[in-house]
């Protein structure tokens, strides 16, 4: 049944290509523009090529203390990633059998995903303000605030990353063959051994995917951080602050550096997933190879 491609294929292929260009074109434009010459402005044409603006960023002569914001965002991103992976895998395992409050957790995750971020952010900020007031009133008058990067900020980011983690776990276990675990159990493996030596190696590529979502969503998070992060800013918040004031390619240089981190993480994660998949394909099964 060999047929040529229908005409709709070519129409849609062009449509798809246009969509991809639409996705990437503008981003590439600012990456290029961040290499403007020292005299360059915010738009094309390029006024020479240099790393002037990027170097300026690293020298810290820029507008805000970007080094500190960079470290804060990185720290928060890594913690969010770890917590997201651990909690999502654990909860994903729980969903494989029935338990009370199953649907409460499910609907909380979905609601957390779709309730507008500004509301969640406002709620967290109110919660911490009220906690602060209580502490000041009852325990310590000089108490400053319990809001911060690793309290309210971390919580705000988790309400955004955990639903993604959980949904990815659902997708994994939809495809998972439970007979593999039964086989492990029949061979006498404890539940932990079954998880550690059978389940985890099989789901590992997708677990790395959860980590990728956890880090990148936190690294770029803005709406939920806006009210809940406390006194300090993360990198995206600083970048957003710059959009209204800056008139030179500083802002593109910062954008390029932030994206460079994102792309490094994406490449590392996808590379690892690829290697793991290859290994699974090569060594995962000896079916059909006879007795060696």
């Amino acid at each position: 049944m060999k047929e040529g491609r229908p005409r709709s294929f070519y129409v849609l292929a062009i449509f798809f290509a246009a969509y991809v260009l639409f996705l990437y074109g503008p981003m590439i434009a600012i990456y290029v523009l961040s290499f403007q010459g020292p005299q360059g402005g915010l738009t094309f044409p390029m006024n020479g090529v240099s790393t002037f603006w990027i170097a300026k960023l690293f020298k810290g002569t820029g507008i805000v203390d970007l080094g500190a914001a960079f470290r804060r965002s990185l720290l928060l991103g890594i913690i969010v990633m770890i917590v997201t992976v651990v909690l999502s895998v654990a909860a994903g395992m729980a969903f494989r059998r029935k338990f009370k409050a199953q649907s409460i957790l499910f609907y909380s995750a979905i609601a957390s995903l779709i309730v507008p971020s500004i509301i969640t952010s406002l709620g967290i900020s109110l919660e911490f303000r009220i906690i602060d007031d209580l502490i000041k009133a009852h325990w310590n008058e000089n108490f400053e605030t319990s809001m911060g990067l690793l309290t309210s900020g971390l919580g705000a980011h988790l309400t955004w990353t955990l639903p993604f983690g959980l949904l990815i776990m659902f997708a994994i276990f939809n495809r998972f063959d439970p007979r593999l675990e039964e086989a492990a159990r029949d061979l006498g493996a404890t539940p932990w051994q079954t998880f550690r030596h059978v389940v985890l190696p099989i789901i590992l590529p997708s677990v790395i995917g959860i980590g990728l979502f956890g880090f990148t969503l936190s690294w770029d998070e803005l709406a939920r951080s806006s009210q809940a992060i406390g006194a300090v800013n993360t990198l995206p918040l600083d970048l957003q602050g710059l959009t209204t004031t800056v008139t030179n390619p500083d802002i593109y240089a910062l954008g390029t550096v932030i994206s460079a981190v994102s792309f490094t993480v994406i490449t590392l994660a996808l590379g690892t997933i690829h290697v793991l998949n290859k290994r699974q394909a090569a060594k995962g099964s000896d079916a059909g190879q006879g007795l060696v």
Partner: protein
Amino acid sequence: MDTSEDILQQASPGLIPGSGTARAAKPTRLSPSFISWLQAGPMMLVFLAFFLIPLVFVVIVSFWDYNEYQLLPAFSGRGYTDTFEGCIAQLPELCTIGRTYVMTLKLCFMVWAITLFIGFWVAYFLAFHVKSKTWQMGLSLLCTIPFWTSNVIRMIAWIPLLGRNGLVNSGLVKTGLINHPLEWLLFSEFSVVLALVHLFTFFMVVPIFNSMIRIDKSLIEAAYDAGATGFQTLVNVIIPLAKPGIVIGSIFVITIVMGDFITIGVMGGQQIAAAGKIIETRVNALQFPAAAANAVILLVITFLIITMMSRIVDIKKEL
């Protein structure tokens, strides 16, 4: 290290038949429901502490009183009355909050219609026209990667293209199509819609693709064999079967746009009023009860939209 010998040794006392009894036969005394709690509990706690309780606080604080610099924990409807100020007096003219919501819904509808159109055809191409699994993976990844990069950067990326001296304007002037640069390209409704479509079409593509990939290809062949034209197959077979994905994608896009204040702020040059922006403005003015009241209104409207849409499809079944 657990070697295979260990595992075999443990197995020797008695082979365990089914999975149900396996846990009971183990020396561990943890009951299955306790294990479930251990596994799901931490995530539940995070949602409780950082999502459910904060939502309750939003509702409570929306009924508190306030002055210039602090919250006053006493019952008051001021948050709401301030929000709806002049709404009755100005009739039939719309008051500020009314105009804001009309604007928000208008943006919402435009973004929804455009992302649905683009998302549907992109998903259709990936699901039905790309035959090789490798290509399907690769192209899906190509659509996903921007989602892992910063939204603000993807917004400011439009500035060198759409600005007064941007690529689009200078191109149009050079070709002689226009004499003066177009002012409405940037910091306008147009740029807000463009940026929202640019950022969030992904949320439409993924669920629709997910529904389409599950459609049994023999159904399409059957429609073809029964003499259906391509258009008939699309309308009578593919769209009904892709409906769950369409609804889920629509819910994502609509709720994101309803609550958005960053894209509308940055791309609208801080000039366009929207539901999310009112909340931000109120918070910046430290009028928390008014901010909370607006959040409750936004939540109710968003909830109504979702309820209406989920009448069409059972979300839980589709995930």
